């Protein structure tokens, strides 16, 4: 360690400190849920429906029970007898744990088989005989609203007599309509239908759990792939009736989450029931097909958007109607008061005076979900629509996409800015980010090159996305998950020798909290992150928190950590004053040390103070040096950025080649630039994926067409470009260290940069929109139609 005269070198904020958690992962010593093996443990497998919609006429488990190694089989009827056949979803619906008399989507859970080994469990599942009577299938959400559509959810027909789950709208309809009427007369109106397809987060580790019930102590321990272990513990307690202090949820190392591991799935509940029933630990791990076909999908929004503007292209009003396909159960992971999540951030980075958004959600015979694939509750859909629309507007008024954005951005001096749909943006400087991106990528030069190429018949496109995100939910009075307010927490213990243990309410699935949260504390206390261990994910030891998703770890958990560390420092100041026999107000702080103003050599280091806290504490203070903070954020944070993508299109194959992609991000104060850059690389790749490759498609019988990694394409190193990144810094004024969060910005911002680039390459022949994923086939069909295909 280097030392300077100013004290120990601190790896605090802004330093690319190498990750502490790497040590175990690079040695193959991570502890993921499938690595856990308990004595006497049983393995589970699930019998699933081959039909998308069918009645269950009967289930015969007699043969399966004869299969060597099979120990128990649980069916929907067994659960019904125990009052456990249905569980609440995060959106106020009820979801079948195991189907009782009907199945509503392909791969729905029908029976749970536990056996002595994985293989015996699979044999048992294969031997369960289910008698189905197929029913008409509804795949298209528009057809689900037809008067003669079959009612998919007779179980709740008393409170919901049709397939429509909700109608939700916000904004000033009258003022918006008036602005459109005006624009029809004296300005321009642009309209576009677009579909944001159903996709899946598909972390490389699937979901799973190990449930262990100790009958002697009455304690249930569940190791599970959970992004929100505390919330899951509370929900388990409510559903099962077990006392909450006898339930321990442990989220061990988690191999990626991206929203997939926010909900509670039937497999978890069944594993708990099986552990109670057999008295033995039960492991359930889904395979990839089960993961893609049955656990939380994302998006699936059919959007119609309209912009009213004046003739110069200055925006006036935005009108959006969306049909949301929620699948068989409304299991969207949303804050309770926001059925369409934060979709009404859709005015984006632009100064709209009026806006109106309406969303209808419906049931179809598809898997339940509606989780946020690396995004904060429908922000991706919102950002995609506005960024696509701004390009459409630019074409309509004959302006460059960059120019139309610069013309309409919310100005830096307008912050805090209140949007037409009621959000208060904390801080931003959109023009600076876009100008930096244009300068770095050489925008003018690229436009010249494009014109030359076009003259030669070559297809090159440049796409811009100047997105604004909204992350870091709460505040708790507006945001809750199943009633639990969205605060977060940190508990810090400084040991007598000055080493620190911190426990946080958020959880990590690769974000590097063990390093960044140590850096936050290190910066506040002036010590090395090596002297701070960060623990998370065990509900018996960590303070209560709502978990990691929607980019809320840094905005909320990071704030709690900074505030807790400041409480430690406040107490340390009192102890230092006592030890130095001066008044608190006579002390100055420098990283790691308090000293007497005017005599810098008279001071006490944080380590000396920590020792005194346990050995020589002032009589008027409690001994020890610990602090806890539960942080309820005053507002959300609004990260933003400008991305520019350059593509070349192969006229023979329709393939889109991403030549360059530059991401300028502004996430406020940066804790660890190395980790931020890594998050951006990963997020961009998960933005590339739905733009060009990923879609969970269904045929008309409700068969999932993307049920494995050969049909559901996630980008490899071959498809992924060498991402370029740059940064501006506009701190959040209301966050203790000014940080905004970054993990999801690139996933939110990237798809439309790519889509805009492809459309830009074809704009001169009249193309205005192509739905993502933009596959070679779609592009080739357009090339063919426009007479541009060379093959």
């Amino acid at each position, binding site marked *: 360690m280097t030392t300077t005269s100013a004290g120990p070198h601190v790896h605090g904020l802004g330093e690319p400190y190498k990750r502490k958690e790497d040590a175990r992962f690079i040695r193959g010593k991570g502890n993921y849920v499938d*690595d856990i093996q308990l004595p006497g443990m049983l393995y589970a497998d699930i019998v699933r429906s081959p039909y998308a919609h069918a009645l269950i006429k009967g289930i015969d488990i007699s043969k399966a029970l004869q299969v060597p190694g099979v120990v128990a089989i649980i069916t929907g009827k067994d659960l019904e007898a125990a009052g456990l056949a249905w569980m609440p979803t995060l959106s106020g619906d009820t979801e079948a744990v195991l189907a009782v008399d009907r199945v509503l989507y392909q791969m729905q859970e029908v029976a749970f088989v536990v056996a002595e080994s994985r293989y015996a469990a699979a044999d048992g599942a294969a031997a369960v005989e289910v008698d189905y009577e197929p029913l008409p299938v509804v795949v298209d959400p528009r057809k689900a609203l037809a008067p003669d559509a079959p009612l998919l959810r007779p179980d709740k027909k008393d409170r919901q007599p049709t397939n429509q789950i909700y109608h939700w709208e916000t904004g000033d309809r009258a003022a918006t309509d008036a602005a459109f009427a005006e624009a029809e007369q004296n300005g321009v109106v642009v309209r576009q239908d677009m579909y944001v397809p159903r996709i899946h987060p598909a972390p490389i580790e*699937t979901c799973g759990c190990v449930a262990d019930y100790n009958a002697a102590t009455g304690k249930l321990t569940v190791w599970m792939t959970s992004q929100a272990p505390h919330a899951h513990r509370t929900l388990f307690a409510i559903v099962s009736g077990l006392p909450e202090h006898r339930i321990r949820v442990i989220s061990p190392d988690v191999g990626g989450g991206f929203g997939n591991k926010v909900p509670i799935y039937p497999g978890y509940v069944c594993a708990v029931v099986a552990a109670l029933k057999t008295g033995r630990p039960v492991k359930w791990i889904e395979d990839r097909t089960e993961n893609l076909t049955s656990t939380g999908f994302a998006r699936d929004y059919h959007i119609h958007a309209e912009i009213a503007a004046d003739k110069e292209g200055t925006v006036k009003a935005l009108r959006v109607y969306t049909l949301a396909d929620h699948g068989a159960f409304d299991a969207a992971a949303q804050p309770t008061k926001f059925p369409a999540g934060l979709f009404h951030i859709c005015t984006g980075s632009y100064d709209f005076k009026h806006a109106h958004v309406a969303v209808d959600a419906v049931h179809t015979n598809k898997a339940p979900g509606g989780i946020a694939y690396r995004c904060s509750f429908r922000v991706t859909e919102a950002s995609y629509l506005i960024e696509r629309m701004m390009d459409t507007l630019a074409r309509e008024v004959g302006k460059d996409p960059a120019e139309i954005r610069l013309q309409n951005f919310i100005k830096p001096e307008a912050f805090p800015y209140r949007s037409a749909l009621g959000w208060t943006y904390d801080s931003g400087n959109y023009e600076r980010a876009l100008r930096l991106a244009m300068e770095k990528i050489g925008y003018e030069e690229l436009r010249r090159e494009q014109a030359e190429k076009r003259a030669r018949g070559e297809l090159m496109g440049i796409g811009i996305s100047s997105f604004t995100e909204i992350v870091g939910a709460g505040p708790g009075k507006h945001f809750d998950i199943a009633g639990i307010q969205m605060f977060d927490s940190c508990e810090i213990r400084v040991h007598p020798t000055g080493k620190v243990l911190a426990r946080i309410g958020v959880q990590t699935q690769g974000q590097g909290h063990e390093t960044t949260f140590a850096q936050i504390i290190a910066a506040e206390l002036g010590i090395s992150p090596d002297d701070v261990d960060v623990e998370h994910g065990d509900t018996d030891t960590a303070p209560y928190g709502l978990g990691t998703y929607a980019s809320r770890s840094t905005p909320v958990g990071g704030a709690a950590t900074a505030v807790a560390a400041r409480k430690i420092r406040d107490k340390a100041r009192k102890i230092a004053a006592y030890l130095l026999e001066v008044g608190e107000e006579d002390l100055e702080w420098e990283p790691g040390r308090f000293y007497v103003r005017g005599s810098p050599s008279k001071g006490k280091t944080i380590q000396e103070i920590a020792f005194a806290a346990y050995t020589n504490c002032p009589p008027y203070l409690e001994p020890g040096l610990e602090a806890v903070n539960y942080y309820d954020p005053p507002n959300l944070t609004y990260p933003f950025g400008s991305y520019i993508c350059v593509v070349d299109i192969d006229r023979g194959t329709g393939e889109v080649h991403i030549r360059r992609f530059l991401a300028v991000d502004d996430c406020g104060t940066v804790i660890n630039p190395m980790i931020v850059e890594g998050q951006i690389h990963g997020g961009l790749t998960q933005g590339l994926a739905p733009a060009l490759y990923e879609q969970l498609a269904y045929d008309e019988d409700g068969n999932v067409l993307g049920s494995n*990694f050969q049909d559901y394409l996630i980008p490899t190193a071959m498809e992924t470009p060498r991402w370029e990144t740059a940064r501006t810094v506009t701190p959040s004024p209301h966050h203790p260290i000014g940080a905004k969060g970054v993990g999801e910005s690139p996933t939110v911002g990237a798809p439309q940069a790519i889509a805009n680039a492809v459309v830009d390459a074809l704009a001169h022949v009249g193309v205005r929109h192509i739905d993502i994923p933009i596959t070679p086939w779609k592009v080739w069909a357009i090339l063919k139609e426009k007479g541009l295909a060379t093959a």
Partner: protein
Amino acid sequence: MSIHHIRVTINGKLYEGDVEARTLLVHWLRDGLRLTGTHIGCDTSSCGACTILVDGKAVKSCTMLAVQADGRELLTVEGLEQNGKLHPLQEGFHVEHALQCGYCTPGMMMAALALLKRNPDPSEQEIREGISGNLCRCTGYVNIVKAIQYAAQKLREPEQVPAGSGGGGE
């Protein structure tokens, strides 16, 4: 179900066991021998999380039966570190921040090791091809490429690469 007795050298150590004919090698490694550094991420031989070396060649251990490993030499992620010294690939992944959740990492390093055995000085494109059978959902591959370049250089000319700055548990 027939049971077979197999003898396999893994990371320089001889292991013996009785396995069902249908047991996948990855399950025997993980559940049978508790070598859990080798992961499982798919059911179609697509993700590479299970990649190990069999007689020096990269193999997806979910795509091989345990009985097929009888008499062979295997290397898994647990065998990379030698006498308390990290392999240059492990070092490179740490220094270049080539892992986030860490789930793909063992398979990724083993695929990279096989590549560097074949081609000690690969171009970026060759590296990308070399790991194209391995999926990573977290990193976007840019830093994985850098980590493999780091290791390639270190393996070719051991003294030339400066040790990574910063701490982080190493």
